[in-house]
Structure formats: C-alpha cells, structure tokens
C-alpha cells in the first residue's frame, strides 16, 4: 500500500512537472506581452516580472502612429466574412453529404481531404495572377473567398458527422406536414446542431483572424490591411516594443474571447467525430 501511494505520488509529480512547463511556455509570453504593453518606452526591457507601471498611453500612441481603426475594421470584415460565409456554405454541403447519395459524392469528399493539405503558398501566386487578370485584385471579397475555400473542408466534415447523428425521421415528419426539404433543414436540423455550428463558426473565425498571406498577395491598398499584416510589419531593428505589444494584446484578444465563449461547444464539437 505504501509502495503504491509513493508510486502514485511520483506519477503526480511527473505529470505536474510537464503541465508546469506547458503552462510556463503558454502563459509567460502572454504575461510579458501585457506587462510590456503597459511599460513606458524608456523602461522597456527593465520591467518584466512585476507590473510596476501602468502606462495606458501606449495604447493611445498605438492608435496615433498606426491606422489601427482601419486594421481592426479590415480584420473584422475578413474574420466575420470568412466565418459566416463558411458556416452557411458548409452546412448546405454537409446536409447534402449527410442525407443524399449522389454521383460524384466520393470525388467531392476526396477533394475536401485534399484541399486540407494543399499549401496556400503553392496556389498563392497563380491566385494573384488570376485576381489581376479578372480585375478582382485588391478587394475584400476576393480575400474572403480565398479564406472560405481554405477554411471550409474541416467544418463540412465536422457538420456532416453531426448531421449524421440526427434521425431523418424528424425531417420526414416535417415534409409530410408540407414543409420543403430546405425549410425542414433550417427549422429542425440547424437548431439542433448548435454545438457543431458554434464549433464551425469558431474554427473559421480563427482562420479569418489569422490570415496573413492572402491579404499580402491579393491586396495593395492600405485600407485592406488587417491587424496581423499591419502589426507584424513593425518588427525590425528599432521596433517600439511597448507599442507593438499593445497592438499584439488587441490582436490576440478576439480569438481568445471567441474561444472562451465557445469552448464548451468547441471541446465537445471537436471530439464529436472521434468518440464514435
């Protein structure tokens, strides 16, 4: 018995040690980011551990030296454009995949798997040329379409898995009562699929907020620059770190917020497919 508890203790210690390393690696950078963003410019680099200063003016300065309002606006357009459009398009496709047998279905499924591993950088350059020749270069819509195409395979497969678990009899009853298939889908299936839809929304929001390459190659005007691109351009030899860290805090808050709001669905949703 004594031997067992000792062994268990050792087991706990090892596990806590690994967890401590992981938490340190995760939280220290975030903490340093926040503390630096509140440190006066001349004290940067000398105050890490204890938040000795509270220089909120760094945030004011950030908005003065950079077109932050425009960056944030663009990022929001990309992220919401990508997530809303993806969820709508993905739920339609998933519904077809879940409820119908049709020719070309295996090809479509294979294409979805393939797209997940086709690198953005490989298609980026032909895409750039195509956008130029079609006259759709430097438009929010073009970037959003590229984002949606890159983001949807995973939500489609996720939602299909979820729809598969909803009995067909529910829609059949509605159709018998005079509903169209599409109406039955919108009124009955979608409300039941909230966890999966939230997961799909969160995942595609992350993709839209994380964007970097697409706006870099597909846009040129400063009004279309998102936060990611605008802020990371500041990295050079004379970076004003306190300002860049203030911008970074603003840049990482939305995905963390979306994660916290959806995490009860997210963990369940992500694992829904693999439990069966």
């Amino acid at each position: 018995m004594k031997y067992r508890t000792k062994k268990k203790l050792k087991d706990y210690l090892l596990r806590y040690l690994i967890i401590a390393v992981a938490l340190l690696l995760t939280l220290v950078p975030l903490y340093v980011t926040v503390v630096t963003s509140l440190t006066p410019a001349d004290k940067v680099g000398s105050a890490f551990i204890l938040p000795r200063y509270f220089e909120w003016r760094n945030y004011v300065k950030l908005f003065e030296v950079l077109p932050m309002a425009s960056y944030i606006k663009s990022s929001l357009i990309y992220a919401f454009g990508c997530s809303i459009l993806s969820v709508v398009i993905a739920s339609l496709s998933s519904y077809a995949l879940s409820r119908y047998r049709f020719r070309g279905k295996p090809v479509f499924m294979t294409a979805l798997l393939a797209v997940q591993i086709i690198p953005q950088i490989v298609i980026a350059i032909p895409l750039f040329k195509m956008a130029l020749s079609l006259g759709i270069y430097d438009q929010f819509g073009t970037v959003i379409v590229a984002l949606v195409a890159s983001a949807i395979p995973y939500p489609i497969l996720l939602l299909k898995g979820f729809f598969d678990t909803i009995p067909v009899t529910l829609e059949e009853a509605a159709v018998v009562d005079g509903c169209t298939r599409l109406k039955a889908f919108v009124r009955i299936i979608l409300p039941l699929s909230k966890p999966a839809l939230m997961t799909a929304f969160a995942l595609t929001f992350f993709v839209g907020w994380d964007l970097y390459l697409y706006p870099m190659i597909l846009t040129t005007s400063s009004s279309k620059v998102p936060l990611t691109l605008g802020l990371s351009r500041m990295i050079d030899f004379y970076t004003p770190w306190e300002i860049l860290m203030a911008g970074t805090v603003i840049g990482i808050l939305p995905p963390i917020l979306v994660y916290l709001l959806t995490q009860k669905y997210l963990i369940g949703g992500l694992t829904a497919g693999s439990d069966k």
Partner: protein
Amino acid sequence: MRNIGKKSLPYRYILPAVIFLTIIFGIPLVNMIWYAFADVDIMSGFKEWVGLKNFSFLIDPEFRKTLLRTLIWVIFGVAGIFIYGMSVALALNKPIPGRNLFRILVIIPWLIPHAFAGTIWTWMLNSNTGLVNAVLMKTGLVSQPVSFLGEELAMATVIFIRIWKGAPFLIMSLLSAFQTIPVEVEEAATIDGAGKIQYFRKVMVPLLKPVLVSSGIILTAWTITIFDIVYIITKGGPSHATEILSISIYNKAFIDNDLGASAAISLFAMVFIIVLGYLQMRSQNKVE
C-alpha cells in the same frame, strides 16, 4: 425519403462549396502546372514555352541547401510537436486537480495568430532587452546575450516557435483519442503486471496507431510548406539561414519576378504533398 425532391437537390446544396474550391484551388493548381514549363512575367503574363528550363533549380547547389534546411525544419518540427504534444496529452489524460483549467490554457498558442506568435516571440527572444536573455544573464547562465535570431540559431528558434504554435492541436486530438481506449483495457494490463512505459508502448501506441499515423502525415504535409511563421519572424534570413521551400517559392515569384521558377518549385513541393495525401487516404481507408 430519398426520392422526395428532385435529383438535382444535393448538387444545388454542394454547388457553392464546389465553386469556391474550384476558383481558389482547382484553377490555380492547373495554372501552376503550365507556368512551370513557361516563361511567365508577373505583370505581363505568358511570354513563351521554355520546356524544362524552370527546373534548373534542381541542379543548383543553393537549392540543395534549401532542401536540407526544409528537411531539418520538417524533421525537428514534427518530432518536436509529437514529443511535446504527447507528453502534455499524457499528463492531462487522467484526472488531476486543475485538469479542466489546464486543458483550456494549454490550447491558447493554437488560437494566437501566426503574426502575433511572431511578434511575441521576437520580443521574448530579443537580444538586447528580451525577457529570455534578461533571465539568462541575471542567472549567470550566459555572459553575452544570445542572438536567437542570428545566423546560427535562427533555424532552431523558428522550429521552437513552430512547435509552440503547432502542438496544441495535436494535444486536443490526442486527448480525444485517449478517450476511445476503454478503461478495462488499462485495468487488464495493470493486473497482468504491465508497467506504465510498457502499457504505453504495448497497448496505447498500437491502439492509437491510426490517429498517430494520420496526424503525423497531416502535420508533415503542413510543415513542409508553412510560410507565415517563418516569413514573419525572419523573412528567410539572416543570409538564407531559414530559407525553406515555401520562402523560396515566394521569393522566386515576388523578389526575382520569375513565376515559372516559382511554379516549378511549387510543383516539386506538390510531389511530396501528393505522396503524403495518398498515404493519408490509404491509412484512413484501412480504418474504415
């Protein structure tokens, strides 16, 4: 049920997705293939067919260095994600006080956009005033600040950041995969006298093999052609120290204005991606 509605119905539902995928992946992929055999200017477009001239990079010694760097990047990046991710997932697998909170927290790097993972770590590792160097100097571990993004260490640094950013997704997949192992299996193994390591090697790994193989393939495919994180932090420098395949593809097109060569390297990279995709498809079919 199946014959309610028209036969075209499912096609109408998948149509938007098909259009998006065709425009963004289908057409560019086809274009990339013919660009690889042509002289294409980034602004004026097609000039002439050049046969295999664009593939001359294959005998360029500089390109061999790029390949070697990409190999190092992929091997250490993927192995690092697996070792770190597996350790954390195992530590969080069974009940331990604080587990739910820890699970939420360790996922955070996955949520942080690549650009900000870049700004945060460039600051943390800054050689003049960054935290890591401050700690190393204070504790006397080094006498001179370490130049983490200098020529010698830049590759190791971007690999570290790649692991930091990439591991949480594996942790999530592994944690949900662990739950598919019935409790009885571990009980039976323990009764039979299997130790922890034995249980992991002889029971868990074989049971989880499908998940491990498929995440290994996907992670490898992603890592081969990652662009953002390296470009943001080093732009492939200093003096090519972190120039991997994806950076070459970008530089050839946008710095050297040579679309043909860029497409040829892309085609070369796609060969590996297609092989990995094929392996992935096969491993999934085996499960089903």
